[in-house]
């Protein structure tokens, strides 16, 4: 192994052969033939007896052939670095960007490889938490399908050749001001990137620059522009809101600053005693979103009807002659009596909480609605309190008009050089812009991207882009704090960072991103203390001194009234269905399509993984005569997509929801052919809600990996919930829900009264169903991705899963979530039946799994009443690509075939914390050990710690009157208990049915 380990290995070194890179059939055969006992895979019909005999024979021969111990090498450095040696973990601060916002992160690195991402505790918008996208982004770094070479006209090239060729373009553009130069890039908020873009603009004043994202907050920005006169950033503070109204808004998961929103929202929902107040959340939407699944009251209506609803609400709020200028309600506007009551109760609730309420609208709603919401928030006194507007700096807003005019210019043949900077128009540009054919008209197409994606076949030059974990840079958080993006590893795949490439485009010179970044910061930080300040900046990752200023500009009511009146008067195609385009809960706009963790994560509402069926309501399904899994042809704007349907209880009638991000066709082993591409139906005028879709049932069906009924628990009262009022009348409702005789054990039980005793409490009021815990656990514990087929069979390997229960009316159900990992029962049913004692209980209360003893009887999984044990039916890590092996956490075993696994309460973290504390001569205090799920949960729903420590949070919560153990009547004494869920319905609106949740029909 003649590698120089002093420098981090480049992407090239990890490929031993082209076959391995391409994963060609020859290579697969080569790998597979190493293990003759695996000759029978899924469908060989090899009987167990024969299999064992083959195994036995080969083992015997193996035993005789070589008794020598295999040689293992220790390969140290030649010159070792001072830190980061094997066995030592290092943490670096960096930032994750998402649209115009950024979240500070701290990344754990083992011997120069980043393995686990956590939120930064120094960034107050994040507060140490993270979401699924942040957690899963580490896998994107190691994606073996990333491009690793510069490609020019189909042949491998190198950067100097590109610079040489580009210098000619650069020179010509300098002369003509860049009039035939065009750049498409995503929107961003970054001081250093903005500096380079400014340089580009100064060099080429006539160049066309279009900043555009397939899913962005453009409508929000334009709404605020309409309302206040200029584009500002919307920042919501839910911790101060007592009444929340969400209009098609997924503010807890994918709209806006979801981490900060979730934390603030949870603060309002956190109830510790019957005297505590609780906020109330009303939601109005078409498709069931993760946020609205937590709502106390939910009204389902088509997205296009929401503006009228809001207008009615506005009129109701305006009744005391407040003087808000509003257009008249259209004559044909109709609301059912139930809806009218809803609106009046809602209006009253908002009125009673002036200055402490909040109205949010989703990014899919029109700018006019956002403007009206701006005015309503102002009317209710929320401006500056629960909602703030920031003057953005270093920000490039997304702009569809710029993209449209650029497309028109391309069509006219005016563009000689088109640069796709981290942009993929062939896949996600609006279909009416016909970007695929128009891109061919450009003379030279330069494609800068991490993958050879759908746009690269059109490119003359492809330059691989570095991942953010390989790049230097900076970003602005939503409130203006500056965050540093620091690399944890040198580019694995020969990528160039965004900063250095943009500089190259602007100046035709190669300069390192580190230098470019420091240049910008040298202008900000004083020169005499620069080195010290710079080190502190890298250590903190956050620089708060330059946060944005905010103002509450008065709403321009006349303008809003005029535009809104036009908006509700727009003629719409009443035939066919309304179509909602939504970002997918895990893949977002498709950027994560090749990320195995996110593809395998079941959508919290539909519980479907590896697919994006069209969501419809039960009534719509009946109307078209379709059932779950039926293929239909959806036609819109002249294009058709064949897609399966899925009935989602609570979906509005008369509309269909299509999720973006699937159906990609680039050479990504996970992404290619997974799901259905609905971008072909999307237009630039109506990117989120369109009208007049035709649905035609096709003959075929599509089997989907649906995890709804996996781990079914037969209708037992596993989620205990009540309304706030019921809780106040009967504080002990949670333990009282299940009556059982006094629990007596057959044998003498362990006292568990010494040392550390680990326990966990999950607050069901705080859990919003975001699944951050699932991905964090997957990242920390090397949980394999098993693929669609296995998920269909119920063999997904997630150690902590989110069970979603519907309850109530089938058309308007309520949703309850329950995160479920191993309950670490003191009288564990699994431990009692293991024939080889592979699972035992340790002195600290953990149910421990010893993988090497396990022989795969699966009796333990059979006996577990919670169904939290996962079995490795196949060797899921057999063909893990070399780079993905780098993503694994070296502190946790990688499990082989035939071995049972389950949540271990992050025993590696417990052990490490104990050893460290012991070495330092101290004991552990509350908070020293955090499980991966607990650390990432944005709403702080999970509490973990030593239950013998009376002051520990977990102990206090276990003493709470809402605390209950699932299936406690079995006397298995789980260490993992729950705080019952509370809902806060308004007494005037019919309280939804509460009590034990049952499975919905779907």
């Amino acid at each position, binding site marked *: 192994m003649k590698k120089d*380990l002093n420098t981090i290995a480049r992407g090239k070194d990890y490929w031993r052969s082209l076959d391995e890179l391409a994963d060609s059939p020859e290579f697969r055969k080569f790998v597979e033939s190493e293990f003759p006992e695996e000759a029978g895979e899924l469908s060989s019909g090899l009987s167990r007896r024969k299999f064992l005999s083959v195994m036995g024979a080969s083992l015997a021969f193996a035993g005789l052939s070589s008794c020598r111990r295999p040689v293992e090498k220790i390969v140290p450095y030649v010159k070792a670095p001072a830190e980061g040696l094997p066995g030592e973990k290092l943490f670096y601060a960096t930032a994750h960007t998402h649209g115009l916002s950024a979240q500070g992160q701290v990344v754990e690195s083992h011997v120069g490889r980043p393995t686990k991402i956590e939120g930064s505790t120094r960034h107050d918008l994040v507060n140490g938490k993270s979401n699924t996208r942040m957690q899963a982004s580490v896998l994107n770094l190691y994606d073996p399908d990333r491009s690793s070479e510069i490609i020019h006209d189909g042949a491998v090239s190198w950067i100097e050749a590109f610079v040489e060729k580009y210098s000619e373009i650069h020179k010509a553009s300098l002369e003509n001001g860049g009039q035939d130069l065009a750049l498409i890039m995503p929107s961003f908020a970054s001081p250093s990137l903005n500096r380079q873009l400014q340089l580009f603009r100064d060099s080429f004043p006539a160049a066309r620059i279009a900043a555009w994202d397939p899913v962005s907050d453009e409508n929000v920005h334009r709404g605020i522009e309409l309302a206040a006169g200029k584009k500002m950033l919307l920042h919501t503070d839910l911790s101060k809101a007592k009444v929340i109204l969400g209009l098609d808004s997924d503010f807890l998961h994918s709209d806006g600053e979801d981490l900060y929103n979730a934390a603030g929202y949870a603060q309002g929902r956190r109830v510790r005693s019957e005297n505590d107040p609780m906020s109330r959340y009303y939601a109005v939407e078409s498709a069931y979103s993760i946020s609205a699944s937590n709502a106390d009251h939910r009204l389902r209506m088509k997205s296009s009807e929401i503006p009228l609803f809001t207008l009615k609400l506005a009129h109701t709020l305006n009744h005391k002659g407040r003087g808000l200028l509003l257009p008249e309600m259209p004559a044909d506007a109709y609301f059912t009596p139930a809806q009218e009551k809803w609106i009046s109760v809602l209006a009253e609730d908002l009125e009673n909480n002036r200055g402490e309420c909040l109205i949010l609208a989703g990014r899919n709603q029109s700018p006019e609605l956002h403007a009206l919401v701006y005015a309503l928030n102002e009317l209710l006194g929320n401006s500056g309190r629960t909602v703030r507007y920031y003057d953005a700096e270093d920000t490039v807003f997304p702009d569809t008009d710029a993209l449209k005019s650029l497309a028109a210019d391309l069509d006219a043949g005016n563009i000689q050089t088109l640069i796709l900077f981290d942009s993929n128009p062939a896949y996600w540009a609006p279909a009416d812009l016909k970007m695929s054919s128009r891109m061919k008209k450009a003379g030279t197409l330069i494609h800068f991207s991490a993958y050879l994606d759908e746009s690269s076949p059109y490119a003359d030059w492809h330059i691989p882009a570095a991942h953010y974990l390989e790049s230097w840079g900076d970003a602005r958080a939503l409130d203006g704090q500056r965050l540093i993006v620091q690399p944890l590893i040198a580019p694995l795949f020969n990528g160039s960072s965004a900063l250095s490439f943009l500089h190259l485009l602007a100046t035709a010179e190669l300069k390192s991103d580190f230098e470019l970044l420091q240049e910008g910061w040298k202008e900000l930080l004083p020169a005499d203390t620069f080195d010290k300040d710079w080190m502190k900046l890298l250590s903190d990752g956050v620089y708060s001194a330059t946060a944005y200023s905010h103002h509450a500009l008065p709403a321009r009511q006349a303008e809003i009234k005029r535009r809104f009146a036009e908006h509700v008067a727009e003629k719409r195609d009443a035939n066919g269905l309304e179509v909602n385009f939504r970002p997918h809960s895990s893949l977002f706009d498709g950027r994560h399509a090749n990320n195995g963790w996110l593809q395998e994560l079941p959508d919290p509402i539909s519980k479907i993984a590896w697919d994006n069926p069209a969501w419809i309501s039960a009534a719509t399904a009946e109307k078209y005569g379709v059932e779950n899994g039926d293929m239909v042809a959806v036609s819109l704007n002249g294009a058709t997509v064949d897609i399966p349907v899925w009935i989602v209880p609570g979906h509005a009638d008369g509309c269909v929801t299509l999720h973006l991000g699937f159906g990609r066709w680039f050479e990504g082993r996970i992404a290619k052919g997974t799901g259905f591409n609905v971008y072909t139906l999307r237009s630039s005028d109506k990117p989120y809600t369109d009208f007049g879709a035709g649905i035609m049932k096709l003959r075929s069906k599509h089997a989907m990996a649906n995890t709804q009924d996996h781990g079914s628990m037969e209708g037992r009262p596993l989620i205990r919930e009540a309304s706030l009022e019921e809780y106040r009348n009967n504080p002990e409702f949670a333990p009282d829900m299940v009556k059982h005789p006094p629990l007596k054990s057959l044998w003498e039980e362990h006292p568990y009264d010494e040392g550390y005793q680990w326990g966990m409490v999950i607050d069901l009021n705080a859990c919003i169903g975001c699944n951050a815990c699932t991905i964090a656990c997957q990242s920390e514990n090397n949980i394999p991705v098993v693929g669609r087929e296995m998920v269909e069979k119920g063999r997904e390997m997630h150690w902590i899963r989110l069970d979603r229960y519907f309850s109530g009316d089938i058309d308007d159900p309520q949703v309850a979530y329950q995160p479920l990992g191993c309950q670490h029962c003191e009288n564990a049913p699994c431990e009692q039946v293991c024939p080889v004692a592979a699972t035992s209980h340790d002195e600290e209360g953990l149910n421990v799994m010893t993988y090497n003893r396990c022989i795969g009887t699966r009796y333990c999984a059979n006996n577990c009443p919670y169904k939290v044990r996962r079995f490795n039916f196949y060797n899921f890590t057999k063909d893990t690509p070399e780079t993905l092996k780098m993503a694994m956490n070296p502190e946790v075993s990688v499990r082989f075939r035939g071995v049972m696994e389950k949540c271990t309460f992050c025993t590696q973290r417990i052990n490490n914390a104990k050893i460290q504390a012991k070495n330092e001569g101290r004991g552990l205090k509350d908070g020293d050990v955090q499980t991966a799920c607990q650390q990432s949960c944005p709403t702080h729903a999970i509490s973990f710690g030593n239950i013998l420590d009376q002051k520990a949070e977990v102990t206090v919560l276990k003493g709470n009157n809402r605390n209950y153990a699932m299936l406690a009547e079995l006397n298995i004494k789980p260490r993992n208990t729950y705080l019952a869920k509370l809902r806060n319905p308004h007494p005037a609106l019919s309280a939804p049915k509460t009590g034990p949740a049952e499975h919905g029909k779907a």
Partner: protein
Amino acid sequence: MIGGAVATVGFFWYFGSPKFTDVGYRPAQPVEYSHKVHAGDLGIDCRYCHTQVERTAKAMVPPTQTCMNCHIIVKTDSPKMRPVNESWYSNQPIEWVKVHKVPDYAYFDHSAHISVGVGCETCHGNVAEMEEVMLVETLSMGWCLDCHNDPAPNLRPLSEVTNMAYVPGPEQKAFAEALIAEKNINPPINCSGCHR
């Protein structure tokens, strides 16, 4: 018949145990490095090269740079130094053969042991007398548990951890009890202690 069964069992009991198959493993290393010369005769402390043993889980085989600290001027022409010089000047690491190994699913932490007074010699033997490193203890789980169940005979004062010539005195029992109480020594005997 019974004698045959006993003989067979006895055969595998001895020849199949790690005491036979593993102890005595003394592979040829790429460099003829003698611990006897360096740790024994020259008296260099274990921690000079194995720097991380008190801090982290892994003790660390030293980088070539550590050798060159002295050998940039000391015995540069010796034929035994040749692979080290090659490594240093060509910037390619030396590939040592691993002698002491626990399975991948068992996680051993050096610092936890050093910080409570388990000597290097207890597990690695008298390395200062070894020309070539040899495995002297089985490092099997049973062997680890023997000490974990009763650590007292294997504890020594922290200052003597790297002393290869240390012999426990007559007050070993009292000393060990005091140390166990002082440092709250409670070695894990449950699976979770090592199996992660």
